[in-house]
């Protein structure tokens, strides 16, 4: 079933802006419920992976992020989709998924397992788009492309395709919570039609003074130099955004998730501590035995014979730890980012009170 795994060769991802818009629309429509869908595109075996189409999965409201890839009907949906595209004459193939999330919440078993499956069985260049819908509110478009690192996949394959990552494997493959996922740079490619639509939209905004931050920022992201200069009013309007004091909600959400993650982490660590204690106890026994054997002067192979006499506890998998660490890291980054502005606001308010 599995093809020979070859290292991924793409270094950047080029996304059609329609794809981005579709993802954003899908995600914001269902926020805060996480959504997902397949990505279709072209792997040209060059350095660039082209993503040209995105379709939302028909199912919404997943309990666990990344779970919807596993649903049979969704897999069939993907299959049908590629077939239809072939019939329509588009040169596309399945290249990965997108999913919306809150901060680093997407890092869980389902997501990683699916991505792993796709990278091994489907296409080594398969990617995962993660869109942090919660950040849209603050006017930030967060769309990131991830792929599991080559080392991780190799470690998985060499380890008999199991998620039993022991410390030895992690060290041998130089894996840690920071590098098991590789983020790829995204280039957004606008077709002429889209540019036109956006410019049109911007004009309308100017007319009605819509301060829809989402759209504004989208435009910013794809801004043409000259257009931005024209819209002075609009930029002013944008700049009031950070004065919004109600941004604490997001931090609250993230802190909640962080607390949960830390709980998980502590749980995992407990298990590991237990293992450590067991191990050291066993080792003490082995040591005793060795000394005794030495004293008795028995002709024993001190290095190996004890293995038949003592059974060391099996080391628990570090896989969970890896994921949880990564998600904690992600949460912390986001919190750090968010809190800078929150703090500034707090002290501003305080200053206001003092005067």
């Amino acid at each position, binding site marked *: 079933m599995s093809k020979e795994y070859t290292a991924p060769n793409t270094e950047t991802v080029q996304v059609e802006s329609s794809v981005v818009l579709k993802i954003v629309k899908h995600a914001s429509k269902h926020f805060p419920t996480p959504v997902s869908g397949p990505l279709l595109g072209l792997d040209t075996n060059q350095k660039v992976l082209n993503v040209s189409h995105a379709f939302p999965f028909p199912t919404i409201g997943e309990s666990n992020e990344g779970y919807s890839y596993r649903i049979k009907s969704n897999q069939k949906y993907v299959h049908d989709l590629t077939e239809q595209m072939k019939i329509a004459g588009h040169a596309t193939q399945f290249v990965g998924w997108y999913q919306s999330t809150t901060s680093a919440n997407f890092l869980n078993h389902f997501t990683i397992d699916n991505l792993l499956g796709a990278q091994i069985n489907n296409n080594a260049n398969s990617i995962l788009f993660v869109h942090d819908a919660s950040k849209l509110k603050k006017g930030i478009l967060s769309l990131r492309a991830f792929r599991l690192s080559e080392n991780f996949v190799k470690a998985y394959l060499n380890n008999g395709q199991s998620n039993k990552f022991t410390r030895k494997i992690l060290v041998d493959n130089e894996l840690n919570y920071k590098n098991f996922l590789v983020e790829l740079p995204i280039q957004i490619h606008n077709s002429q039609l889209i540019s036109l639509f956006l410019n049109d939209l911007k004009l309308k905004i100017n007319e009605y003074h819509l301060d829809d931050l989402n759209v504004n920022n989208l435009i910013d992201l794809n801004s043409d130099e000259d257009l931005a200069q024209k819209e002075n009013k609009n930029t002013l309007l944008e700049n009031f955004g950070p004065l919004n004091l109600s941004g604490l909600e997001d931090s609250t959400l993230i802190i*909640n998730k962080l607390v949960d993650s830390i709980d998980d982490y502590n749980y995992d660590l407990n298990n590991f501590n237990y293992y*450590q204690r067991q191990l050291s106890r066993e080792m003490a026994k082995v040591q005793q035995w060795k000394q005794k054997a030495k004293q008795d002067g028995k002709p024993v192979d001190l290095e190996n014979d004890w293995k038949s006499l003592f059974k060391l506890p099996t080391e628990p998998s570090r896989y969970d730890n890896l994921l949880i660490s990564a998600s904690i890291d992600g949460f912390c980054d986001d919190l750090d980012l968010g809190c800078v502005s929150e703090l500034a606001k707090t002290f501003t308010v*305080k200053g206001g*009170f003092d005067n």
Partner: protein
Amino acid sequence: MSSRFFAASLSDSESDEELLSSEEEELLSSSEDEQMESSSEEDDDLDDDMDEDESDEDDDEPTGRNKFLKTETPQRSAAYFLKGSNIPDSDDETESESDDDNKKVVKSAKDKLLEEMKNSANEIDNAADFDDWLTVSKEFDKLNKLLIRSQQQNIPTPTFYIKTLAELEDVIILVSKENTKMNAVTSKAFNSIKQRVKRSSRDFEDLIKRFRESPEDMQKSATVPAVAPAGRSAAADEEELDIAATLRTVIENRGKKNVDRYEQVATLEKLLQFAESPFQFISIYFLLIPTRFDLSMNANYMPIDQWKNAEKNISALLTILEDNHDKYRVTENGEAGLDFENEPQANKDGIVEVLGSIASFVERLDDELTRSLLVIDPHSSDYIVRLRDESQMYNLILRAQLYVESLSSADQLTNPSNDQLFRIILRRIDHVYFKPIQLINFNEKTAWNALKDGQESFVVKSTSTYDKEYADGLVNTLCSVLYRQSNSVYRKKAMLCHIYYYAFNNQYFKARDMLLMSHLQSTIHSCEPAMQVLFNRTLVQLGLCAFKVGLIDEAFQTLQEIATSSRQKELLGQGVQRYNQQSSTTSVAADRQRLLPFHMHINLELLEAVFLTSSLLIEIPQAAQTGNNNYNKKASTKSFRRALEFHERQFFQGPPENTKDYIMYAAKSLQMGDWKKATNYIKSVDIWKLFVNGDAIKKMIEEKLQIEGLRTYLFQFRNYYTKLSIGKLAEIFELKESKVSAVLSKMIFKEEILAALDQKTSSVYFIHGHELNKPQELALVLAEKVGQLAEKNERLAAGGHQQQSTGFNSQSHGSNGNTSRNHHSQNFKISSSNSGIIAGALNGMDNKGNNRRQKRNNK
């Protein structure tokens, strides 16, 4: 038996049947007889006597005297003369006592049986003469069956049976010598009869021998075990020797396999009737009592009748010892000797010391009582009936104590050699400490009354007035004797019992102080399990006592550990853990030994009710104080909180059914500030009636609920008020205004609420504006969690080093160090970024609050 016989006397056949059905009952005693008969030759005379005694006890059998006469010269019974004409004339006696009015007189079953046997015997004789071995075989079978039946009815083996047996033997020997030819069937029958006769004659070997020696003598009497013509007076000459000999055989057989212990007990019981000197009695009892205990060695518990007999024996022994206290004394350090013939030499005081231990007997008897109480279903009436024996047991303990005391003197109370006395005193405490004063006094009274006048104890004096002081004094003095012992087991146990007693009888402070001063808490872990169980019981009782006197906090703290344990039953010695797979059968047995009989149990439901109620009174105001989130709370009432959460989460909340439900409902009402409803809920728990003064307890709970209700109300709703009238509060909670002010002042003083009392308007002002908002709370939680995480990581790192030091597998510990380093860096990151933020946020908020306050002050 006799009534059955009356009924049976209507017709022959019926009586036969009736008797058949009664055979089973008598199987036991008659089989003993039989065995005794065949036991040994030298015991012959004795056996005869015993047979006589056996029948003495039976109502429907002719009395011993009758038989005595009968066997000498067969007589017509009185019945014959009354209704003579109807009775078929027979050589044997007919039953006399039963048929006074009956016209129709019947042969007794015994006569019938004997007649049948006689017929069979004649048949055999005839058939043997004609070499008709088939008939012989058949009749011999019949005869044997009849013989067994007759033995079951305590009919001695008839002489003609022995005669038949002897003759058959002769004929068989003759026939085998002659070697006459027989057909196949006959020879087969002959061979089988040969075998059987051999077997039977082996059983009756001695009798046959006697028969061969003097057939005339034997034939004189109708039945074989003829009463020794010498009679009692002659037997008396030999009895001394007999007793000693029998005692020795019993001792030799003791503990051996395949020894019928019942038989031994019966033998010893017989001996008692011949014993004359106190020494003989003492020796016999010393053998009889342990043998009786041996009876139930493998059984679950001692049969009740045996227990009663043992109790009788022990008290009889005590009577003998008491009567002869100037000649004999039983000590545990007397000289060992199995010499039953000769009394040991008296010592210089003219007192014979006998080795033995009254204390052990009493202890064993008490243990047996406990064992049987453990087995009997505590909810059945059997249990109560059995429990009545406890007062007997107590009497016996007291008696034993007095006897053992009489062996020593008051100044010997610290002497370790007086161990016997201390053991008995410990037993006495065991029977006293868990009872209410009234019951103790009642027991004491009956026990002292049962004693002979003039007996007095120098440890505890008897009294004419049994009141609280007496019970207190009793436990005090008993315990203080044990406190002076060097053996720490006595001291610990006495101490715990003492504390238990005080706690049980509502003297909380005394009990608590004693427990604290005893310092048992620190050493109890190294004690044997039974002691730990007692400690736990004492602790629980202390907690219950604290609750009874209204000390909620103390009750909660004392009970917490045991009430929240999942092994409550095991800890209190009230049950064994059900699913303990690792435990072997021996450990299960050991566990069982630790159990206490039901009447000593502490009611677990009561324990639960008390614990939950105390938790409720502590927890509900606390929960209201800290807000309804689950963070940042004292972990002390976790179990209650969990129960409450579980209750809230329930899909369907039906009306309260058990204690827990009631208390949960009460908690919910109290949370809403409805103390009246809460009180009603708690009052409707009917377990309170287990307390002696249940109504007072309910009243106490009500008062507590009023106060805690007030506190909860203030915590819960302070945000919605700027000020509250004290009068109004007093009205709501039906408290005195002064009480409300007192509660308020205390809360303000403890900084539980920010408020001020205004005495002019008699109201309380709340100061607002210092509550935390959600992110701040979260931040605090986060800080705590991160702290935990850091700690775990530290441990992880430490574990890595440990491994390094063992020098195993450099690869693995290298990686371990690596991962832990990773975690560390990450950990630092979290703490540096987040806790900084948290601190910042908090500082900001705090400052904000402070500033506001300052501003207000400025204004």
